[in-house]
């Protein structure tokens, strides 16, 4: 340890001899690392797996159950299902859990004297909360999927409305229909919100309130993100027309824990498609998709092109910065070659000089890290300003910071390695004579 402190002292002395080239090296590296890190933050967050322990067990089934004929491979199954098709897909015990859902908008207030508050609503079924590991703080989830005048709130909304989180049993007016609070969710933010990836809304925050699917249909809530129909029925009367007609608006998720379950469910979908085809309700070719949550964004092409392009540009920029920093570092080391040679002549081995280099690397890493964090923070703020839609994905966690530390360490090592090797392999006698 004492020797390492000595190496650090030698590094500091070396910097003080020629501070300007060192400051320039740090600035260039901090700039490259900071810009790269700012973009990497978004890239990492947007591509994060919010449920790594089960994202390969949650599946989004899609079937080409449409009333028109399409017999080539260009016809993709629609990403949302009709109520009737969900019933057919649900008619099996193979999945461990299953939930149909969609999102909508509504107005909420405590009583008719208050101004209505616009809220985002997820209209779904009981298993939604279990499948996506949604934490419950107070109350409970609905015991089944039947219609009920009950509502589940987020903790933040409960506190906003009532000034407290435990509001189970209290009544609210949702579009002036009285509903009882049956549960309050703990702080929860699934990032990205992959259950909504089919409509490209996975970068949005989670909804504020949760309503049973049957109640949502009874209250005539239409999807606010993705819906389509193949007939001229007026689906604004969802409560009377929605369950039997051809309105496609439901996302559907199933949990299939084992490969055997997954294969059984694929077979089930295949049989269902064949049955539908035989019944004349399915004129197109059979095209079933069972996409796992891990692959859902890629399947729907929801990856951010801007972020991807910037990732490449910032990586190239980082490489250019590292090349420039290497050049500066080489000049610094060659101007210090005399001291390297002297130390070698007086008995330092190349390995001991490399230990000196490690101290240089550590010091450079710390300086670059501090600069990169500052520049990275500025970069994140700028990107939040330019792309506010990604604002939720701009936070740093310890894994990201550890990644930056390792990157700064690697970059500092790369920038220092060649110059220090050049300096330590120089001709001893020549340097000492000059």
């Amino acid at each position, binding site marked *: 340890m*004492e*020797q390492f402190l*000595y190496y650090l002292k030698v590094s500091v*002395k070396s910097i*003080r*001899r020629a501070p300007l080239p060192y400051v320039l090296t740090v600035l260039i590296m901090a700039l490259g690392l900071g810009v790269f890190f700012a973009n990497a933050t978004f890239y990492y967050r947007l591509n994060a797996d919010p449920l790594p322990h089960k994202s390969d067990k949650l599946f989004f089934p899609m079937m080409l159950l449409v009333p028109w004929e399409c017999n080539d491979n260009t016809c993709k199954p629609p990403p949302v299902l009709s109520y009737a098709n969900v019933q057919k897909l649900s008619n099996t015990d193979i999945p461990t859990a299953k939930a149909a859902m969609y999102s909508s908008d509504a107005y909420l207030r405590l009583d008719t004297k208050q101004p209505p508050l616009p809220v985002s609503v997820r209209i779904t079924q009981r298993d939604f909360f279990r499948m996506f590991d949604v934490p419950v703080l107070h109350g409970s989830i609905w015991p089944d999927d039947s219609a009920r005048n009950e509502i589940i709130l987020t903790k933040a909304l409960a506190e906003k409305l009532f000034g407290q989180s435990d509001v189970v049993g209290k009544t609210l007016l949702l579009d002036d229909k009285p509903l009882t609070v049956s549960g309050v969710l703990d702080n929860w933010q699934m990032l990205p919100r992959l259950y909504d990836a089919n409509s490209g809304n996975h970068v949005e925050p989670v909804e504020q309130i949760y309503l049973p699917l049957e109640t949502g249909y009874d209250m005539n809530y239409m999807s606010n993100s993705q819906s389509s129909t193949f007939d001229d029925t007026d689906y604004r009367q969802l409560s009377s027309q929605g369950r039997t007609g051809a309105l496609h608006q439901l996302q559907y998720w199933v949990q299939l824990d084992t490969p055997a379950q997954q294969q059984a469910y694929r077979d089930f979908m295949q049989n269902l498609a064949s049955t539908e085809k035989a019944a004349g309700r399915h004129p197109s070719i059979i095209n079933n998709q069972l996409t796992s949550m891990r692959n859902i964004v890629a399947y729907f092409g929801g990856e951010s092109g801007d972020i991807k392009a910037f990732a490449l540009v910032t990586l190239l920029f980082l490489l250019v910065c590292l090349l420039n920093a290497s050049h500066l570092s080489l000049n610094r080391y060659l101007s210090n070659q005399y*001291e390297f040679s*002297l*130390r*070698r*002549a*007086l*008995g*330092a*081995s*190349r*390995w*001991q000089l490399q230990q000196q280099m490690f101290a240089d690397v550590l010091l450079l890493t710390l300086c670059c890290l501090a600069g990169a964090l500052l520049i990275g923070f500025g970069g994140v703020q700028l990107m939040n300003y330019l792309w506010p839609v990604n604002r939720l994905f701009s936070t740093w966690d310890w894994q990201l910071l550890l990644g930056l530390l390792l990157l700064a360490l690697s970059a500092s090592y790369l920038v220092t390695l060649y110059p220090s090797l050049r300096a330590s392999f120089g*001709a*001893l*006698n020549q340097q*000492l*004579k000059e």
Partner: protein
Amino acid sequence: MIQLNDLSKVFKTELIETHALRQISLTVNEGEFVALTGPSGSGKSTLLNVLGTLEHFDGGDYLLDGQSVKGLSDKSLSALRNEKIGFIFQGFNLIKDYSLFDNIELPLRYRGFNAAERKRRVEHALEQVGLAARRDYHPSQLSGGQQQRVAIARAIAGQPRILLADEPTGNLDSLMARQVMELLEQINQNGCTILMVTHDPEQARRAGRQVQIIDGHLSDASMYDPLAQNSPVAVA
């Protein structure tokens, strides 16, 4: 102590080959004070560098304490330089922004001594060269002669068995040169073997014996020096 057998060294460029040392055979016994003399470019500094393992040689063999240094690893050569050999350079080669203490301590740092042992050795070396009161000075605050004494202190702090001095008085006036020579003689009397490159015949005569190098060869003139007190040079 030192035995060279047909040692040769060639400097090669794309155009020419320069034979700096040609079949040099030389034996130096423990405790000797040997002056290496010869005209400029004759190869004496190259010989000193080879002896100090600062340069590799191309042919022959070099035995130090009966062990061949040929083929030794960088780690072994570094340890050998650090523990057995002390260097004194014509240009002092002190690090300007280090104190005298730090300069002298530098080779001890790579030897694994603890802080107390390093301090003891540095202070002892400073006392030996008469600069104990100036341990926190920087080289620029000293005269040339004093700087060379610091360099000598650095060389002897590790208590090496061989001291290699490359024109140690080349940059000093006559008074300072005499002081440095007296210091070297004193070190030699304490049992340290010294090989010193010099142009100065007077200083060469003060050494125990002289070895003359001309065009990379040991010259016949080095066979016997009437002023030398010790036995003639052993030339193979």
